[in-house]
């Protein structure tokens, strides 16, 4: 059974899915906008109805919860919570949402082209609606944050809806930059709160307010949360994104930027007030920011000519009022807050929708070009008149009550004496200016001189009904004697936010008192301002245009650009510099953070060691070191590579002394294969390139050498400390090895414990490992064969005609003696036999599938070297590397699945030999999943390694130098000076320029 509070959200989410479908499906192109509006409005209307049916319990003081475990191990749930505060917001979101959706269907006229444009708007709108509803219903901070970000993103899409307009794009980016940046701070703040409170649940957080307020990190928590909430709710100095966001279509502005999204910050602060509120920091920060925002919004709004901009600034002002109210620690403030949120949502959404109608019918929103509209659109005029009266705070409208309670809060005895004059004075000034703004809309928009330039008429019924309903509600609440349900709802909302019971009475007349006197002052001065508006507004405008707070934003952006410029200066493209920076930073971090201490050096070796072995080990270590250093000093690349291989082979000796015979085997064969591949790659580099590389390697300045030496020495020293610390402090008892040792034989019937770990205990790792190795082979193939050609690479080597291909050098050199060729012929079958033994006895004796695979590829390599590419391909038609890889991986999976079928567990050992009753297998040989896996490893490794050889040795990639030589040979052959046949080695020797010249010099 779906919990009743999940249902509204679910319906909206489904509707959002439908709207996205309409936006991308052909159906949406043919459906008229108004149908779409009515269809999609069902969801918010249904959500509204569901919330209403839920409301009696909430109004009775209960709350509803629903929770779906998400990551229970981290205590994270997707949880929803419905109490008075959530209900107030959820009703606004769904109720106004339904009206706006229907209205939008009439607002958009479907043009012939771009037929899906309106559906796109609906998709954004419904997605936003779902996010917003989720935000106010969220029961824990993570759920809240996810929906919070959802509103930021969808609001970005709505503001940038007219994406072809550069201004719209810039405004959208600005809104996203500011609210998104605030969102990051909010996430940090919420996580910190959840961590300190020990729970992410909002109810639990509200209950742990006493602990949070004395927490040492309280200022950080408050700062981060406030940053998120205040940027979202357009508080100074970040308020300027809201007027910019007016580039959104008017239905979106009416919805997002008056009633819902900008109130998300208010909602969050109200929600967290029981947890974080009541401190001095909370009071001063919110009061001052709110006060300043209130005054800026009221002041700048009065200078605007654009109807929507004017409304946007008055919204900024109202948001400032609400933030200021949350800052107060008095019951009356939260009463004023609840009333203010509700009253503002009603009149402001109505006025925005009216602005949309005016724009729609006359084509302009400029107050200087409007006037006298009351004749043409009387109904709209009445609607806007009622809403504007509420905005102005005149009786008998709901807005009057909002202003009265605000003034009552400003004159409340709980206000500290330092500001007890400033608060009421500021409230009066703002009230007067807001009244003047409301007057501008009515006087300059609907009354006064009619302009002939537009032929306005009433919009369709549904379009004026959308603003008329909230406007009528504003009037009804004022006129009706005590609407009980609404009063209770507001009281419940205020209580949830205040943390203690709040009483709300909606009676307009409370007798002659200080707030009423102040209200009279505000109204009369507002009317006075209105009377002289034509002289006052230019004056106001001059002041406000001198001070632009968006300078801060522009400055921040420029600063970021500068920083990026500086950062990219460091990135000069020299990889060596990056390496140096990384190494040095890592060293500094190890020294500063790790504070390593050199452990006591003990020269005494362990007693179990035989002295002869110790001497051998030391000798091997010396060989390893000397040959590594030799690879630096040796000038010819080939010799350096040989020194490297010597070092690697000495490591194999050390492994043998461990004793670790499996390792030593693999190390030996891998070193050999590495040598082959390295030499192969070396021969492919053009000779002049290598000569140049030689020049700058060995003609380096002493300063540069010293620098590199110091860096290498520092890295080595750090490494020494790390290794020595690790080795001297390592535990001398293994946790895992005894398990493997005891169970290798009984569980997997393996004698070789290392092999048992590879193919049985850690079989899944091994599967992934051979897959990685296979990918390495395929990656080389892709890099060399596919990428360079498909990218239309100009420098890619030209394909050479097939008949000359076998005369290319490198791996394809045919110039090997018959003796070597004979050896190669012998070697390949031998390696196959060796590999087979390794696979069969892998579980019992040293060696395993890896060794087997590399041995096979070494045998194949000898063929490539002796016979050349084409010849090898011709003589070994069964050699299909990609096929080997595929077969190997499939065999692995097959054996794992067969084990799953027989034993019920993936990769578990199965002895097929025993099951099938094959008794005649030699000792140490098994026919089991392990054997199959070894074979699969062998196939994959051999396939991938051969693919590497094949790709690196393919003559089609020969460099231009070789191509020239081929052409020379071809010319010789055509002139009849040489004949090319099966064994043309000798003639080629004569024909080609001698190769003995030292390649590096």
């Amino acid at each position, binding site marked *: 059974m779906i919990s009743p509070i999940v249902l509204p959200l679910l319906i909206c989410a489904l509707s959002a899915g439908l709207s996205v479908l309409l936006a991308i499906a052909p159906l949406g192109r043919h459906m008229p906008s108004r149908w779409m509006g009515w269809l999609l409005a069902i969801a918010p209307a249904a959500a509204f109805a569901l919330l209403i049916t839920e409301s009696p319990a909430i109004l009775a003081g209960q709350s509803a919860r629903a929770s779906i475990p998400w990551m229970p191990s981290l205590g994270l749930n997707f949880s929803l919570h419905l109490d008075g505060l959530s209900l107030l917001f959820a009703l606004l979101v769904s109720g106004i949402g339904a009206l706006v959706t229907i209205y939008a269907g009439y607002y958009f006229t479907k043009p012939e082209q771009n037929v899906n444009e309106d559906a796109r708007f609906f998709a954004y709108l419904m997605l936003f609606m779902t996010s917003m509803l989720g935000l106010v219903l969220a029961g824990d901070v993570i759920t809240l944050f996810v929906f919070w970000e959802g509103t930021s993103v969808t609001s970005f899409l709505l503001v940038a809806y007219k994406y072809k307009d550069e201004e719209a794009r810039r405004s959208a980016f600005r809104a996203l930059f500011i609210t998104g940046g605030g969102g990051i701070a909010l996430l940090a703040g919420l996580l910190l709160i959840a961590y300190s409170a020990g729970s992410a649940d909002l109810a639990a957080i509200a209950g742990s307010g006493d602990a949070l307020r004395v927490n040492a990190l309280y200022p950080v928590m408050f700062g981060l949360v406030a940053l998120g909430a205040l940027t979202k709710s357009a508080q100074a100095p970040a308020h300027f994104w809201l007027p910019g966001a007016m580039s959104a279509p008017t239905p979106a502005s009416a919805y997002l930027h008056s009633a819902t999204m900008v109130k998300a910050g208010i909602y969050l602060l109200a929600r967290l007030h029981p947890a974080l509120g009541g401190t001095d920091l909370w009071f001063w920060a919110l009061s001052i920011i709110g006060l300043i925002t209130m005054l800026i919004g009221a002041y700048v709004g009065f200078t605007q000519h654009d109807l929507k901009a004017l409304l946007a600034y008055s919204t900024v002002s109202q948001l400032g009022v609400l933030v200021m109210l949350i800052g107060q620690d008095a019951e009356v403030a939260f009463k004023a807050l609840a009333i203010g949120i509700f009253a503002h949502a009603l009149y402001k959404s109505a006025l925005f929708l009216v602005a949309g109608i005016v724009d729609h019918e006359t084509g302009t929103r400029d107050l200087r070009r409007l006037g006298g509209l009351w004749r043409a659109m009387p109904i709209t005029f009445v609607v806007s008149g009622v809403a504007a009266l509420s905005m102005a705070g005149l009786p008998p409208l709901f807005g009057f009550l909002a202003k009265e309670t605000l003034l009552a809060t400003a004159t409340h005895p709980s206000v500290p004496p330092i500001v007890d004059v400033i608060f009421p004075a500021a409230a009066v000034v703002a009230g007067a200016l807001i009244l003047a703004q409301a007057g501008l809309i009515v006087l300059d928009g609907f009354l006064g001189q009619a302009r002939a330039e537009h032929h306005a008429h009433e919009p369709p019924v549904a379009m004026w009904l959308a603003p008329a309903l909230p406007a009528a509600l504003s009037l009804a609440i004022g006129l009706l004697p005590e609407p009980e349900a609404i009063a209770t709802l507001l009281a419940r909302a205020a209580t949830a936010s205040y943390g203690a019971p709040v009483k709300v009475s909606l009676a307009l007349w409370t007798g002659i008192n200080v707030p009423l006197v102040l209200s009279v002052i505000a109204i009369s001065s507002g009317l006075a301002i209105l009377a002289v508006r034509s002289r006052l507004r230019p004056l106001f405008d001059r002041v406000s245009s001198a001070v632009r707070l968006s300078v801060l934003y522009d400055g921040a952006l420029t600063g970021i650009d500068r920083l990026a410029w500086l950062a990219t200066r460091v990135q000069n493209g020299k990889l060596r510099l990056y390496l140096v920076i990384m190494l040095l930073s890592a060293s500094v971090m190890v020294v500063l953070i790790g504070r390593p201490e050199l452990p006591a050096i003990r020269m005494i070796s362990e007693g179990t060691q035989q002295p002869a072995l110790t001497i051998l080990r030391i000798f091997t270590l010396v060989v390893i070191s000397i040959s590594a250093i030799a690879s630096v000093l040796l000038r010819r690349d080939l010799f350096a590579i040989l020194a490297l291989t010597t*070092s690697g082979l000495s490591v194999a000796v050390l492994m043998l002394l461990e004793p670790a015979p499996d390792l030593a085997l693999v190390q030996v064969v891998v070193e050999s294969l590495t040598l082959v591949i390295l030499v192969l790659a070396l021969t492919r580099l053009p000779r002049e390139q290598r000569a140049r590389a030689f020049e700058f390697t060995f003609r380096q300045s002493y300063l540069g050498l010293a620098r590199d030496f110091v860096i*290498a020495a520092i890295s080595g020293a750090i490494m020494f400390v790390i290794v020595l610390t690790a080795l001297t402090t390592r535990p001398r*008892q293994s946790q895992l090895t005894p398990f493997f040792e005891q169970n290798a034989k009984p569980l997997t019937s393996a004698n*070789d414990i290392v092999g048992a770990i*590879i193919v049985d205990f850690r079989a899944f790792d091994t599967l992934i490992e051979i897959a990685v190795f296979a990918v390495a082979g395929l990656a080389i193939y892709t890099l060399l064969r596919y990428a360079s050609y498909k990218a239309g690479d100009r420098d890619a080597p030209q394909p050479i005609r097939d008949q000359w291909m076998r005369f290319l050098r490198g791996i394809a050199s045919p110039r090997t003696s018959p003796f070597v060729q004979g050896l190669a012929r012998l070697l390949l079958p031998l390696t196959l036999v060796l590999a087979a033994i390794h696979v069969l006895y892998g579980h019992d004796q040293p060696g*395993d599938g890896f060794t087997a695979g590399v041995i096979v590829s070494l045998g194949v390599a000898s063929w490539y070297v002796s016979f050349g590419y084409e010849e090898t391909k011709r003589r070994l038609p069964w050699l299909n590397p990609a096929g080997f890889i595929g077969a190997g991986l499939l065999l692995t999976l097959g054996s794992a699945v067969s084990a799953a079928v027989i034993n019920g567990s993936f990769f578990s050992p199965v002895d097929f030999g025993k099951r099938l009753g094959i008794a005649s297998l030699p000792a140490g040989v098994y026919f089991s999943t392990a054997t199959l896996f070894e074979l699969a490893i062998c196939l994959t490794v051999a396939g991938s390694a051969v693919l590497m050889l094949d790709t690196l040795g393919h003559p089609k990639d020969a460099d231009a130098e070789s191509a020239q030589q081929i052409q020379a040979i071809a010319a010789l052959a055509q002139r009849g000076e040489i004949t090319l046949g099966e064994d043309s080695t000798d003639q080629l020797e004569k024909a080609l320029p001698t190769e003995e010249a030292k390649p590096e010099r």
Partner: protein
Amino acid sequence: MEVLLALTISLLFATGIFQMLRRNLIRSVIGLSIISNAINLFLLASGAYQGEAAAYANAAGQRSDALPQALILTAIVISMGGFAVVLSMLYVLSVRYKTSDSDEVKGLTH
């Protein structure tokens, strides 16, 4: 012994770093290989105990620690695969940038 091992490992590491800092990309690749050897040695040395016999179920006496050996076995093969990829990238770079000087390999080219 630990001191000697630590000395060798850090010496190999330093040599590898020095090689990687050469402008010649071939030397950088050699450096990479030396470093992977150093790391494998480190893993080998970090086994919990030294053995007298190889890690076989039927071996007599103290067996060597099988766990790091299994890890190294994997590491050797993987690092060879990685090494081959790096080499082929070196070749692609040499074709595209007409150089094997790491300082000249910068910016995008096509």
